[in-house]
């Protein structure tokens, strides 16, 4: 039975269930990220528990994001209640591996028994819990979990966290019948990944979706802890829905137009070199120790046969590293923020990468040398050096 169906089946003022600690803790941990910790709206720090059939559905929401999950339980009395989320999680963690009995008492008190431990917590009226959007029945798309996981890992870090650039506070996901693309940028660098050659069920035409950063982070941890092969994705005017196994993540949609990123993708970056990602990463980390602390600027010099990386600051001194490369073009010097380069190198995880430049005033492009199934490119604006 899907989680929403449990929700509609209950509505009484009693509830009594028995659940294994392991199962309950797993779901509690998965939903902790959505529970608002620093809120003065009391209901948001509560879980909604709804028991029906042989399932317990758990819901947490911070109003922008909500996560609904379920686990197998023995239901003695169907019903629902709300329980303070953080306390419950902290408490269940400390219980021995045994069955836990949760029972709703009067005045929203909830009793939690496990072996010889006995606890009572006070929840709130269920009616206070925000109503949640329901998963649409039409227009559901399926995306392989592995693809989405990898795409989020390779773009998520480039999302802007500046509050003033709200259209950049999310990643753009473009779904086409035969490809999926994800783009994120903060205005200084842009991460773009495309996966073609897979067929997506239920996608017709091009569909663009702005996925908020918070939802991206939550999706990432949900994808990391699932063994589901496919996730279901759907959206309506106000909400995005991701179903990952037995968990359903919903996020409100952000407004605004994602910038026209195609215009900034470099076209004639002809000066190209190939280096080993790990080697480059280590060299950058070393010289970056001596970069100006605010700008984190490192300089790259392409010379015949070698790539020189250098940085200097008035207080700390200067540092240089040289990497041997196969390059016969003209000399080029260009500056970049070291952190931006390292972010990309970390996301690609070593291996051969290609650096492509035009001149010292134009954006540089980095990408893994072997395209494999993904077309991954990373564009970084240069710094004046």
């Amino acid at each position, binding site marked *: 039975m899907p989680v929403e169906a449990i929700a509609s089946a209950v509505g009484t003022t009693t509830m009594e269930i028995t659940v294994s600690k392991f199962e309950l803790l797993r779901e509690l941990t998965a939903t902790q990220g959505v529970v608002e910790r620093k809120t003065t709206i009391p209901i948001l720090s509560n879980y909604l528990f709804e028991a029906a059939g042989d399932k317990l559905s758990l819901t947490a929401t911070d109003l922008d994001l909500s996560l609904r999950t379920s686990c197998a339980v023995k239901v003695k009395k169907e019903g629902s209640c709300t329980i303070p989320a953080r306390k419950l999680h902290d408490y269940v963690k400390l219980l021995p591996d045994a069955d836990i009995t949760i029972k709703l008492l009067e005045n929203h008190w909830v009793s939690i028994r496990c072996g010889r431990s006995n606890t009572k917590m006070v929840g709130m009226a269920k009616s206070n819990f*925000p109503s949640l959007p329901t998963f649409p029945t039409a227009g559901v798309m399926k995306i392989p979990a592995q693809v989405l996981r990898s795409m989020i890992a390779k773009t998520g870090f480039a999302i802007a966290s500046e509050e003033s650039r709200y259209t950049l506070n999310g990643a753009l996901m473009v779904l086409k019948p035969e490809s999926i693309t994800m783009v994120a940028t903060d205005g200084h660098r842009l991460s773009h990944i495309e996966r073609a050659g897979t067929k997506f069920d239920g996608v017709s035409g091009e569909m663009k979706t702005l996925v908020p950063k918070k939802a991206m982070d939550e999706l990432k941890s949900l994808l990391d802890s699932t063994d589901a092969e496919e996730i279901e994705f759907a959206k309506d005017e106000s909400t995005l829905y991701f179903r990952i196994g037995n968990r359903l993540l919903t996020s409100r949609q952000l407004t605004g137009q994602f910038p026209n990123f195609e215009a900034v993708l470099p076209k004639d970056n002809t000066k190209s070199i190939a280096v080993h990602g790990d080697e480059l990463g280590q060299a950058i980390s070393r010289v970056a120790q001596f970069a100006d602390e605010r700008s984190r600027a490192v300089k790259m010099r392409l010379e015949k046969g070698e790539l020189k990386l250098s940085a200097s600051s008035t207080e700390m001194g200067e540092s240089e590293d040289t990497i041997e490369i196969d390059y016969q073009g003209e000399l080029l010097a260009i500056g970049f923020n070291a952190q931006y380069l390292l972010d990309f190198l970390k996301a690609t995880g070593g291996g051969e990468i290609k650096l492509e430049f035009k001149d010292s005033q134009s954006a540089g492009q980095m990408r893994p040398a072997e395209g494999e199934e993904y077309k991954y490119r990373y564009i970084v604006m240069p710094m004046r050096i």
Partner: protein
Amino acid sequence: MPFSDFYGNSDVVNRLREMLARNHFPQAVILTGSQGSGKYTLALMLAKAMNCLEPIMTGGLPDFCGKCSNCVRIAQSEDLDACTAEAVEARENMRETDKKETRLFVQTHPDVLVIPPDPPQMMIKVDQVRRVIETIYYRPGDARERVYIFTDSAFMKEAANSLLKVLEEPPEFATIFLLAENAGELLPTIRSRSMVVGLKALPAEEVEHYLARERADWSPKQRSLVSRLSEGAVGRARTFDLAAYTAARQHALTILTSALRAADHSELFKVTETYRAGAEGREKIERLLRTLYSLLQDLLFINSGTPQSVHNTDIESELRRLAEAASFEWITSAADGLAEVERGMRRNLLRSLSLDAFAVGEALGN
């Protein structure tokens, strides 16, 4: 509780409803009016009218049903004091580390966020505005319009600057209400980005009429006095605490007597001593200053031959005696002195000393 329940200022209310009807409602509105004039009530009513699921028309203008799930949930925010107290209590129960980073919000509907001033400073803080910025660009879920209501105009400097950013380009589905007793308390840059709508003070007779309906339990004499003391604000009149007011007025009278007669100051010091530092004393001194102004105004009315305008009718004879000693120049200088005390309060000067300095200063000038 449709718009017809909003007492007074019907021209202002209708103008706002006309803007709603024409879909021309400004994205940022500064609602001004004295304490208890109905700014918050009106803002919530407008939020309901924007989001009512079964909108109705009354008198050819948009209204709300008050029964649909949106109206009901928004209405749960109506008792602002209770909601704020609940939020403060929720914060008190948190872990120490979280407490510091937690800001007050009242939200009974997912798309309507009420931002009350954050204690103990009782000001709107930058983290509260940040929360607005973080959430305002999400599309409304259960409603059509996202509504944000700042219930106080006391912004921390950073918070005010931060607010400017959203005011510059709010999403088309959001409306921000800024409630202020005086629009001048807000940055000019905030004012220029918003529409200022003022709720005027009602004539005492209208307030009395309202009280006759709402506070039938009061004696007619009390109603008549309160309607004069409440400065034309029905909300203030309805919840008027006559005992607290009389106590503050007794203090105010002592201070004024000291200031006029330059006699023995021991009475004065006994009074001013009770105005302690700290956040708890803020309300007390604010009430006192308000009362002092109202007494000065009464003195002025008596001296200028318009005793029918006097607010504190119950102590008119005492006021007349004081008025004999108070010249026009003295009253203006005292008003200036009071303004100086108010400014000092914002800079956290010692309350008792400021009041002493005011009284003694005016006495010497006399």
